[in-house]
Structures are given as structure tokens and as C-alpha cells.
């Protein structure tokens, strides 16, 4: 029987990483995720690992790059402005094909913004905030339990595909406390890393180099082709989403993370008015669950799709692309740390269905 513990989201992320075998954490304080580093400052020492408070988020992501190149499971966490600083590092990690896990506890932007929750980093996370043709796997938990499970899974995905996996949370998830049931043992995909810089014995292998520069066009194109093939496999095998109440719905609502919890309640409110609302909740934001969105939208009962986000309209673009003109796609969002109320969302749905 799994023990259930009441824990804060930020701390669960740290605990999950240690349980997943991560023994190297590099961070910098930024609200609203600093508790992750505080927890790690003790927990890593207890676990015999390393926690370094770096001089900046830039330094931290480069320490991640180095530790990953050296073959370790490694984590850094930050919030929106700090994640902006890390974009250079993300591009290098992608080009060098290194596994890494990064957590973004999103706050309001742009600029210094605010410290309240937001979802305004969707574009940055899924379309690539760094330079070049690359992708990161992006996971969007919607509960503290999911924070735990997806953080563990993130390390497996990162190792399996030799790339960065991002947990896109938000300030609500990071700060809230919910019960978490921890497994006795975590499912750890321990992949061999023969490419890592670990020192070597001449009898066993040649020296390894890790780099991302290819001066010859053909060589750089070969790298890009290799990356694109990898991403295609991930699109086929790693998409995750949840569908709630979608069969024969009048309106499909698409939402992720904290926002999806509000929308989930709206299903019940709408039902009381005789409106059948279904929810599609992407769990992987990249790869985006096109098929789940389409299968929900492509029903004769469905009048429209409504995307609800804590931003000015980001995931809605991917929803529109997926729906591809089948049905009208609407958007409702709030920014600045404000949350849409259930009533706001219901009012928007009512205006769509005309009752």
C-alpha cells in the first residue's frame, strides 16, 4: 500500500528527481520555484549527490550540459525569466544530443512580469526559444501527483531519446499542497551512455568528443536529419493526453495544467444547464496530441472547440492547426496571474452554443 504524503508541488519535483536517480542539481533562486532548490540543498546531500547554487541561470544550464555530457542524470529548475536565460543552453543541449530535465514553474510575463501563475511560456517551450531546428519534449502536469510521476518519466524520456525534457508547470502547481502517493521503486530506464565523457581505457574505446558545430553543410544537415528522425519517432510513440466526457459533446474545451482543473469543473456546471462539454487535456505539449484533439472535435455533435489558457492565446494556435478548419476554434484567456472563473468559461461556452 503506497503511503500518501501531503507535499508542496515544488518539493515533490525535487523528491521525484532524487527517486529517479538524479544526483546532480544546479539551480538559481527565482520565485515561485525556489523551494525546489531549498529542498535539494538538503535532500541531495542526504542522497550523496551534488547541489550547486550557480551564479546565474545561464551558468546552471551550462553545468547541466557538462554533467549530462559526463553521463549523469541532471536537473535544473527555474521560472520564466530564468528559462529565457537558458535558451542558449537548450539549443546546445539539443545539438549535442544530451539528456537533461528542466522544470519551468511559469510566472507572468513578459519582462520581469509578475510572480503569479501563468501559461505564457507555451510558445517558448514548444516552438523552441533557442536558435535552430530543434524540439524539447514538454510535459504539462495538472496535479501534484502528476508533477511527481511526470518528473520521474522526464528522466526516462531524456535518457531514451538523448534530449531535453521540460516539465512545464506554473506557480499554482509549484506552490499548492496535495497528497502524493510515492511508489516503492521508480521505473528507471537506465540506458548505457557509451558516448559520454567519463574517461576511458584505450583498450576499451577511443576518446569521446561532445560538440554541436559542423562547419560542412552536409555534416550539419546530417545532424539535423538525425534530429528530425528522432522527433518523428517521438511524435509516434510518446504523445499523451486525457479526454474527459468528450463523446457526443456540444463543445470541446482544450486546456492544460492548472487551467484544465478549472475547465474540468465547468463540465459539471454546463451539464446542469443541459450543455454537454468535453475536455481534451494535453499532457505532452510537444509532441502535441493532434489526434486526440481531432477525434474529439470531429463529431457531428460538436459545434466548436474552445481553448482556455492562462495567456493571450498560445496553445490555441496548435489546436487550430490540428482542427484544420473542421470546426470553429475559440479562445478565452487571462493573463497577469489572473485566473478565468468557471462562470467566465461557462458564459463563453453559452455564447458559443447560443444558450
Amino acid at each position, binding site marked *: 500500500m503506497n503511503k500518501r504524503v501531503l507535499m508542496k508541488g515544488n518539493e515533490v519535483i525535487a523528491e521525484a528527481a532524487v527517486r529517479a536517480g538524479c544526483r546532480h542539481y544546479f539551480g538559481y533562486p527565482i520565485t515561485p520555484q525556489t523551494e525546489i532548490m531549498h529542498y535539494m540543498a538538503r535532500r541531495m546531500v542526504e542522497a550523496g549527490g551534488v547541489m550547486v547554487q550557480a551564479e546565474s541561470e545561464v551558468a546552471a544550464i551550462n553545468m547541466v550540459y557538462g554533467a549530462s555530457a559526463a553521463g549523469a542524470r541532471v536537473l535544473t529548475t527555474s521560472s520564466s525569466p530564468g528559462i529565457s536565460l537558458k535558451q*542558449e*543552453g537548450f539549443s546546445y543541449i539539443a545539438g549535442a544530443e544530451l539528456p537533461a530535465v528542466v522544470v519551468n514553474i511559469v510566472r507572468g510575463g513578459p519582462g520581469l512580469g509578475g510572480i503569479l501563475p501563468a501559461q505564457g511560456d507555451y510558445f517558448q517551450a514548444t516552438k523552441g526559444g533557442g536558435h535552430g531546428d530543434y524540439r524539447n519534449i514538454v510535459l504539462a502536469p495538472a496535479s501534484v501527483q502528476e508533477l511527481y510521476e511526470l518528473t520521474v518519466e522526464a528522466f526516462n524520456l531524456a535518457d531514451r531519446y538523448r534530449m531535453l525534457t521540460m516539465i512545464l508547470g506554473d506557480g499554482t502547481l509549484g506552490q499548492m499542497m496535495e497528497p502524493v502517493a510515492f511508489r516503492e521503486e521508480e521505473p528507471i530506464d537506465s540506458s548505457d551512455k557509451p558516448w559520454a565523457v567519463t574517461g576511458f581505457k584505450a583498450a576499451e574505446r577511443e576518446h569521446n*568528443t561532445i*560538440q554541436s558545430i559542423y562547419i560542412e553543410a552536409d555534416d550539419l544537415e546530417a545532424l539535423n536529419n538525425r534530429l528530425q528522425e528522432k522527433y518523428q519517432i517521438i511524435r509516434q510513440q510518446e504523445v499523451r493526453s486525457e479526454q474527459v466526457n468528450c463523446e457526443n459533446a456540444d463543445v470541446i474545451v482544450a486546456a492544460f495544467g492548472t487551467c484544465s482543473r478549472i475547465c474540468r469543473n465547468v463540465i459539471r456546471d454546463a451539464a446542469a444547464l443541459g450543455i454537454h462539454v468535453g475536455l481534451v487535456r494535453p499532457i505532452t505539449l510537444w509532441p502535441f496530441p493532434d489526434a486526440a484533439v481531432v477525434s474529439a472535435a470531429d463529431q457531428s455533435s460538436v459545434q466548436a472547440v474552445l481553448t482556455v489558457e492562462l495567456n493571450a492565446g498560445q496553445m490555441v494556435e496548435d489546436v487550430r492547426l490540428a482542427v484544420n478548419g473542421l470546426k470553429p476554434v475559440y479562445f478565452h484567456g487571462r493573463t497577469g496571474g489572473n485566473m478565468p472563473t468557471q462562470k467566465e468559461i461557462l458564459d463563453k461556452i453559452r455564447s458559443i452554443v447560443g444558450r
Partner: protein
Amino acid sequence: MMEEKVFARTPGLTDKPFHYCPGCTHGIIHRLIAETMCEMGILETSIGVSPVGCTYNNYEYFACDMVQAAHGRAPAVATGIKRVHPDHTVFTYQGDGDLAAIGTAEIVHAAARGEKISTFFVNNAIYGMTSGQMAPTTLIGQVTTTSPFGRSADAQGYPINVSEMLATLQGAVYIERVSVTGVKQIRQAKKAIRKAFYVQQAGLGFSMVEILSTCPTNWGQDPVSALQWVDEAMMKQYPLGVFRGSEIEVKPEWK
């Protein structure tokens, strides 16, 4: 009559020909580091970090495990590597733009933390790869592509003495500035490189060797005159010597 081979190309270098300009001192410095790793028996347990600059691809020249870093980030990358493999010898190799411009925060903090890594700082007072711009170590009066009238303190500020600056940090336990302008200086540079690796292996803290170097192409000089300019001009701003750790002796039992 018998003969003994007294100088061979070190196995610490791969066989790839260096792409550097004729007379560029990068080649000398690469060789000294590679020779030292072999002589100390640490080639297989060393991991180097390449910078961005003329020597961006020195991971192709050193025969140990190598990781290339983003511009200026090598000390942070080296920190990550060393924290995973504390028993290995981790070094960074950086030019004056990489270390003293974009990478200033990273080198200061790696040194302040006393990270047990060794940095080889190649200072030639100019940016080579991007064709001759001013560096943080460019001398007052020196003509570069971005100081075409000669560097003026008013317009472009003053050069930075990195060794002296880092020597104020407690975690930086061994800092020496050397040059490679002649055989005697090259031998001293090699001693400094060896001492840096010993300091790291003894777990004492951060070590750095700043190596005054030439850039014949962008200085507009022939290689031999360029070496002389280091002696005559650069050394006035950047005196040779030990700024931290003169009391540390390289003990025989440290391998």
C-alpha cells in the same frame, strides 16, 4: 655512434594537422598540455572543455575526452563535469573573448567556488576567429578592427588583468602568468601547466595559467616579430609571475 630520440610528437595530440595560422602560439600551448597529460599518466582520465574562438575545435586535437562549450561557458561546463567525475582531471582552454568578455561571470564564480578544475587562459589581446576585434585585454593604443584609431581609455575603457583580478579570490589557489615567446619561457609555461594539474589532483582548489600569446595575422606582424611584441609591449601591462600559490610545491608523491 648511437642516437636517442629526444623529441617526438606526443600521443596526447591526435594526428590531425592544426588549422591555426603560421606561428600561432595555440599550437605550442596545445602541445604542452598534451605532453603534460601523457607524462603525468592522466590522458585517459582527463576531460577538456573547448571554447568558442579560433580554437573552437581543439576537441579534434587533444586525445582525451573533450566537450565543447558555448562561448564563455566553459568553467560552468567544467563544473558540471567535475562534479560528476571528481577523480578525473578537468580543464578548460579559453581565449580572451571567451574568458574575459562573455565568460567573466563563469570564470569568476568557478574560481570563487574553488572548483577543482584548471583553466588555461590564452591571452593574445585580440579576437582572432572573428577577425581582429578589440578584446578586454587589448592594450591602450592597440589598433584593432573595432578600435581603428587605437584603443582609447575614454572611448573603450581599460584592459583587464585577469590573473591579478582572480587572485583576489580565496578559492583560486594557484594562478600564474607565463608566456611562450622563447624556449626558456615555454619550459616555464610547461612547469606551470604541470603545477596546475597537480593542484587540481591534490584537491586544493581552482588553478589557472594565463599564457601571453600571439596573433600574427590580426596584429599584422610576422610570427617572430609577434613574439617580440609580447615581450616588449604586452608584458608591460601583463607582467609574468605567480599571483597565487607560489608557496605550493609540486611534491613528487603527487604522481
